[in-house]
């Protein structure tokens, strides 16, 4: 029996994480070569492996070092972390809601964070304060959605989805209102640009915020990943198996909200990543969440890095990454829809 259980594992499932990690590392190094100032791959590799990345101290006279470590490195790190967080959140949310068509944005967190960010830009707050207010209001939106859902008496999944729609719609209208009130020459362009989503203003401070949140919430999410299998069976069955359904569901959603709020606060609206990447991961390792969550995280990092590379190098002027992820995400999703709907995830 012992030998059997080892044999039974899918051959791809065990080596996929390792290959994906190598792919992330290579893609990150390649991303560091992209940009106006040419730095060859070999130089990038040498600079990266001789500098401690978190607290970059080095030769500020040396242009390639500054470009790689001060300009490009924070952006690459930020993109990777956000991609991982979003994809992991999406995979968790799809499990919690037993629905592969939901994204991490479902509970109104993104809209709340957007409102906070726009308000902070209106108030001419410094960049870090924008991040802080966006993060705070994202969590406030989640709290509001939770409270609304509680009003229905039983905190069902459907109640929360509807509450998320209400909160999201309300925040969206306030964002619109602020935009019409904004000074059209100075404030409006920066609001619009921020809302479209971009990693252009990446700094090590932002990296620290996202890394801290991702380390905490991401680790907790990964630790809880087997429990998502149980939740995805549905309330009655999960309860009968001894799962504290309510507590687990709220806990997971809180962690997802942290990850999403962190991402929106540093880079504005980046949609579709959390929706699509879990599907790609499912094609690779199957639907089981102990394998799905890590794989989604790695794939999310790769996907968003690739998108960001295109965003900053495809045209003369940078394309907002939010536009790119939607423009690329929608057709990919349409393809997945066509490809997988016969395989059962549309089943009622």
């Amino acid at each position, binding site marked *: *029996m*012992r030998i*059997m*259980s080892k044999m*039974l594992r*899918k051959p791809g499932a065990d080596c996929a994480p390792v290959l994906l990690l190598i792919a992330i590392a290579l893609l990150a190094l390649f991303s560091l070569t992209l940009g106006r100032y040419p730095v060859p791959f070999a130089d990038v590799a040498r600079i990266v492996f001789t500098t401690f990345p978190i607290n970059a101290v080095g030769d500020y006279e040396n242009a390639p070092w500054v470009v790689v470590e001060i300009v490009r490195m924070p952006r690459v790190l930020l993109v990777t972390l956000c991609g991982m967080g979003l994809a992991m959140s999406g995979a968790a949310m799809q*499990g919690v809601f*037993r*629905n*592969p068509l939901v994204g991490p944005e479902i509970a109104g967190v993104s809209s709340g964070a957007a409102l906070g960010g726009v308000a902070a830009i209106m108030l001419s707050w410094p960049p870090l304060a924008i991040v802080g207010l966006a993060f705070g209001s994202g969590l406030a939106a989640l709290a509001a959605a939770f409270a609304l859902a509680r009003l229905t008496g039983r905190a069902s999944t459907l109640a929360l989805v509807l509450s998320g729609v209400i909160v999201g719609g309300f925040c969206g209208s306030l964002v619109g209102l602020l935009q019409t009130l904004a000074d059209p020459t100075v404030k409006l362009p920066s609001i619009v640009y921020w809302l479209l989503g971009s990693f252009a203003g990446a700094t090590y401070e932002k990296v620290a915020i996202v890394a801290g949140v991702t380390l905490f919430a991401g680790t*907790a999410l990964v*630790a*809880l*990943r*087997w*429990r998502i*299998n*149980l939740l*995805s*069976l549905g309330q*009655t*069955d999960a*309860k*009968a*198996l*001894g*799962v504290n359904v309510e507590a687990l569901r709220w806990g997971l959603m809180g962690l997802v909200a942290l990850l999403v709020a962190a991402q929106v606060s540093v880079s504005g609206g980046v949609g579709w990543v959390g929706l699509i990447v879990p599907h790609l991961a*499912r094609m690779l390792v*199957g*639907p*089981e969440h*102990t394998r799905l969550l890590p794989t989604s995280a790695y794939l999310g990092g790769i996907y968003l890095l690739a998108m960001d590379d295109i965003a900053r190098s495809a045209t003369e002027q940078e394309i907002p990454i939010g536009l790119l992820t939607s423009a690329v995400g929608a057709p990919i999703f349409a393809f997945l829809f066509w490809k997988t709907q016969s*395989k*059962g*995830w549309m*089943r*009622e």
Partner: protein
Amino acid sequence: MSEPAISLTNLGYFYRPNQWVLRHCDTRVARGSVFALLGPNGRGKTTLLHLLIGALKPCEGGLSVNGRIAFVPQLFEVTFDYTALDMALMGRARKIGLFSQPSRDDEEAALAALDRFGMADYAQRPFGELSGGQRQLIIFARVLVAEADILVLDEPTSALDLENQSLVLERISSLARNDRLTIVMTTHHPHHALAVADDALLMRGQGDYLFGRAREILTEDNLCSLYRAPLKRIAFEHEGREIETIAPILTPTQMARHHSQETIGAE
């Protein structure tokens, strides 16, 4: 007699105030026995099951359940197509810590349980691709993995073909005899109840319940008045064994009328 696995005292439930679905229900289910719930639709069979597993709370009276309950819904559908092994493994939820993942031991316990039901070869097959009967067996394996004492089944044979019906009934019987599990099942097939159940409860209407030994209360009279359809209880010998079964009587006039309607419909 030892303490019963389940006892209901004056149990009542309504979904809307004073529209009782279930009322004045008293029953005791002995440990290690198979207990069948019979009755037409809308008499509260499923409500009673949901009360037993704790998904609903009684509005009146009380119930005591001594042991760990596992529930097997009528048709087990999954949103995500986990493998049979992953499904069986979920029975270990109580043993695996909140922040932990299943270990090799857990996996082997699940495989051993699948093996008990002859499903070890299907361990890596997607659950959704299995037949209804095979799915039931996987869920039975999960019950063993969960080390439950009481198994609650909602119409375990309703979605199955004849071969799988007898397979599932045989396993139900074996779980009670060999594993000393207490089994509560609803069914629309009185002959299934007669074949496997020790005790039965006929749900005739609110406050009108007949409880007793299955062989004694599954009589022609009781069943005919319960279902308002003619039935015959038949005994015969098969391979040296005395077999008793219940068959519905489809009268020639009914069949002829049915047939002529079909012919008219075709024209």
